[in-house]
């Protein structure tokens, strides 16, 4: 029944592509070469986020939540017949303004049912994919929390991470949202330390993989990090 329903608005298209990637002209197996990147002399630059997008199967609730409760301006909607990848549904693609040129966008695939695997889950693996919006000050963060609570949304307590203070909540789709502020500026020291932490982790992952084992504890990464930092400090002294 749901397959039939899913097929109602699924259109054949003019593309001869057999897969999503073929239609899009992309390939998940072609992930680039860091050696070329290091040597081609080109520094590519980005200017922030234009949009992130997720599917929704709750059209009315999503519009009401983002436009009328959060009061993010709806700034653009595409409505189109399904095209491109095979079996693409007719769809709506709509964008809400989230400041400084960024938007949060949704796809509503007309006549489709939400596949089970896209249902929200109460798990940190699922929540890892989330949207975090910035505000500039502590007062603004507090205003967001108190205002949204006043509008009936359940908002988390404030969480202070190392460089961020955040509040969390869900949208009607079960997607996790975050509003956050930077607690301090980041410096060169932060990025060199970040490199060392990930260097420690990737070294251990490689070594474990060679032995058919896995890294199972952050403690091991902290130990390797100690070695790398010690070597850095000795190089400075030397």
């Amino acid at each position: 029944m749901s397959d039939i329903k899913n097929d109602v608005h699924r259109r054949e298209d003019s593309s001869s592509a057999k897969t999503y990637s073929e239609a899009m002209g992309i390939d998940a197996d072609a992930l680039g070469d860091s050696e070329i990147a290091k040597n081609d002399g080109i520094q590519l630059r980005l200017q922030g986020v234009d949009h992130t997008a997720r599917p929704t199967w709750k059209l009315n609730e999503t519009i009401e939540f983002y436009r009328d409760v959060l009061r993010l301006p709806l700034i653009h909607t595409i409505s189109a017949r399904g095209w491109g990848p095979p079996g693409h549904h007719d769809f709506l693609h709509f964008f809400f303004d989230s400041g400084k040129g960024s938007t949060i966008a949704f796809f509503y695939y007309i006549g489709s049912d939400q596949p089970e695997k896209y249902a929200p889950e109460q798990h940190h693996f699922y929540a890892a994919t989330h949207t975090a919006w910035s505000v500039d000050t502590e007062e603004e963060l507090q205003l967001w929390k108190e205002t949204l609570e006043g509008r009936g949304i359940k908002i988390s307590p404030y969480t202070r991470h190392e460089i961020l203070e955040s509040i969390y909540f869900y949208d009607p789709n079960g997607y996790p949202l975050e509003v956050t502020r930077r607690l301090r500026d980041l410096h060169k020291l932060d990025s060199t330390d970040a490199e060392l932490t990930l260097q420690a982790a990737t070294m251990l992952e490689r070594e474990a993989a060679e032995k058919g084992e896995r890294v199972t504890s952050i403690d091991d990464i902290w130990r390797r990090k100690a070695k790398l930092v010690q070597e850095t400090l000795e190089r400075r002294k030397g």
Partner: protein
Amino acid sequence: MIRVYVLNVPEFAGLIESAHRMDHCRVAEGDAGYTVIESDSEIIFDRKEMKMKPAVWYGIFTGGLEGEIADFGRDQVRVIGTNRAL
């Protein structure tokens, strides 16, 4: 020997202040962005004394730790020495 490497940023400053208050800890404030806390015997850090929120507390050894974590609780962590190579 225990060595705790602390990145010199405000969120981890409590570790350094705490180590200064512990007689058995030696604190070397290096110029390369890390302060090194050394001790020949176990070190216990107290979260509330350092006024750390949990989201920072559970990452306090991100600067590097030579030693072994014997207990890591919500409010206290105990680090002991180890002969394991880094």
